[in-house]
């Protein structure tokens, strides 16, 4: 494309037209601006991934004092909360269903005798509600060491020489969940909003028949795309800025790294999203269809596959490949690297290059698709 073939004047006219469209539909505009902020508060207050006070029940047919001691130890741990002691729980499934407990610790009738006499270890059965695998795994891993320690303490046995683990959590030493969800939400919003807006505005023009009018006007496809994109870059930038601001002021998430690099990464990511929106709009005929493409491809896959909540390393191989073609995966590396770790271009040039490459590729594809309409 020659340089003189793009006219700034024509693009300006298109930007003004697009801005009018946006301003006229102010309800949508409010949703777009308010949504990210509301989501931040929602995540901020609902998202606690640490597990504590799981209700458990203790079955103790003998009513022995040793069991009570162990029970107090269980209750004192942060993870469990003892709801009560029962004499016997015959139908354990019913107990789980009616009491809503997460585990039942079952002691044998002669537990007291066994544990004092020694020789053979006294058995304790731990029944775990495994429906939520996360909680189930945690209970399984915690139950044994907890009760061993309690039993050792009660019997006055000194534990054997052991290895202490001294953990040093980098980047997020207090394990604040805000440091975790603010970058993640930015990854969701900044891909979803621009893709949705561009694809919807273009399909609306299609539905109304005004896209044909634009295409037969002196405007070139690339000018239409630039004009359409600019207004939405601005909206996305406002969203991004607002989220950074609220994150900083309300949730105390400050950027450890370079702001300029952060802004550059956000802009590249927004561009990828806009280009995706353009591609959707060339495929879909109606706004409804565009929407049904946008939600699964941008929002859901970003939440599920980018490593925001579910770690990529734990997924099956095929999905790890899929995760590797998600723009959000690379943006999350970038934004977490910059905001939390404070690292720069030296460590992060790779994801930045991949993200830029994706944006470039999608843009070329969308321009070619739009040209084919002519």
């Amino acid at each position: 494309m020659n340089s003189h073939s793009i006219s700034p004047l024509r693009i300006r006219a298109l930007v003004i037209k697009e801005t009018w469209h946006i301003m006229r539909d102010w309800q949508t505009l409010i949703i777009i601006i308010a949504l990210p902020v509301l989501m931040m508060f929602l995540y901020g207050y609902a998202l606690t991934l640490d597990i504590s006070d799981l209700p458990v029940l203790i079955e103790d047919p003998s009513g022995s004092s040793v069991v009570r001691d162990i029970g107090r130890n269980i209750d004192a741990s942060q993870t469990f909360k003892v709801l009560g002691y029962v004499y016997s729980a015959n139908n354990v499934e019913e107990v789980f269903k009616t009491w809503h407990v997460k585990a039942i610790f079952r002691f044998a009738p002669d537990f007291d005798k066994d544990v004092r006499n020694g020789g053979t270890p006294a058995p304790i059965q731990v029944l775990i509600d495994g429906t939520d695998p996360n909680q189930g795994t945690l209970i399984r891993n915690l139950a044994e060491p907890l009760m061993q320690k309690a039993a050792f303490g009660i019997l006055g046995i000194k534990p054997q020489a052991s290895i202490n683990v001294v953990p040093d959590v980098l980047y997020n030493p207090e394990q604040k969940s805000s440091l975790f969800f603010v970058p993640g939400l930015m990854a969701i919003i900044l891909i979803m909003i621009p893709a949705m807006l561009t694809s919807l505005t273009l399909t609306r023009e299609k539905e109304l028949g005004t896209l044909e009018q634009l295409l037969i006007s002196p405007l070139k496809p690339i000018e239409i795309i630039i004009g359409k994109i600019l207004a939405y870059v601005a909206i996305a930038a406002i969203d991004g800025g607002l989220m950074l601001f609220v994150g900083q002021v309300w949730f105390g998430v400050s950027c450890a790294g370079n702001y300029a690099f952060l802004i550059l990464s956000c802009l590249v990511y927004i561009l990828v999203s806009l280009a995706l929106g353009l591609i959707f709009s060339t495929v879909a005929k109606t706004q409804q269809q565009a929407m049904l493409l946008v939600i699964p491809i941008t929002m859901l896959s970003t939440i599920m596959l980018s490593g925001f909540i579910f770690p990529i390393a734990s997924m099956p191989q095929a999905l790890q490949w899929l995760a590797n073609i998600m723009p959000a995966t690379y943006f999350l590396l970038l934004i977490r690297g910059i905001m939390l770790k404070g690292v720069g271009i030296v460590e992060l040039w790779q994801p930045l290059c991949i993200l830029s490459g994706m944006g470039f590729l999608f843009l070329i594809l969308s321009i070619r698709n739009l040209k084919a309409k002519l």
Partner: protein
Amino acid sequence: MRSIFTLIWKEFAHIKADPLMVRLIFFPVLVQLFVIGYAITTDVKNTPIAVVDYSNTPVSRDLITHLKYNELFRFVGLTTDERHITTMLDKGEIRVGLVIPPDFGLKISNNKSSSVYLRIDGEDANSSQVAVGYMNSVLSRFSLDRVALILKSQGMNIESQIPIKVSPVVMFNPRLDSTWYMIPALVVILVALITGLLTGLSIVKEKEKGTFEQLLVTPITPIQLVVGKIIPFVIIGVIEIVAFFAVSLLWFRIPFKGDPVALFVFAIFYMMSSLGIGILASMIARTSQQVLFLLWFILIFFIMLSGFFIPIENMPGWVQIVTAANPVRFFMFIVRSILLKGATFVDLWREGLAMLFIGIAVFWIALSSFQRRAS
């Protein structure tokens, strides 16, 4: 009655006239069920780890071998300098670095306690906590094995030294498979999404085209109009539920222990809410775009506060109270309980009743706003 059938007929004609729409109703959702079904494992596996071994003794090398053959970790490498660990953490190549101090081998060989140092990438608070837990269990197993070895060489049995034996039994989901927990919940979300979205869009489309006014001036009463509008989507919703559960049971091999009749009845209660919200959104909004935004917005709240991946018990008290108005929360609990625990009407009547109340309330508000608009 005849006019309702005509309306239903008309609605199906609309759906049939848009073949892409029909495909979009089923395929992306099915694809999602598969992709997400495999993606949402909350288990933490293959955590990349690197080790600095300043001790370099048989004991420390033994420990490293323990880590190498543990499937919870992916062993990236052994370095000689702690700074390498920091760089690798910065780049995101590893999530955990283990530093074994110089005196580790000597202390452990002399049966004294020793420390090891972990450097953990804390950017993902959840998985780093889990990884520390795994590391603790690997290390305690390692030291227990050593103690057992030493005792054995002295002719003693470790069993006699341990006062208790803990045997865990995992119920309802014995392999602790996260697909068993997440897929049924996903079905609950997808059903609300599809039924709410389709209802809302079908009404607002008539508003956009001006045919809504035409329908209102016909002899059809507003109630008949609403019933005629939603019955096709109830049918689609039921078909989708059956299809999704077929996939869950046949492909993901999730057990169906409970009462199918209870599930069906509760599903109808549930759809009252989702369809009602769809109608309500179409009354507030003027364009399809606004309906989409509104529904999407409401759904995000419902999903976040449903216990889908954040357990409700962990939320602050006032957030827990807010979730009592969330139909998704109750149906998710019901579906998980019926499938995995074999729950029946008797176990679930509280949740079912709550859902029925929410459904009636939402539907009544939707209906009255529809009638207000019609008159």
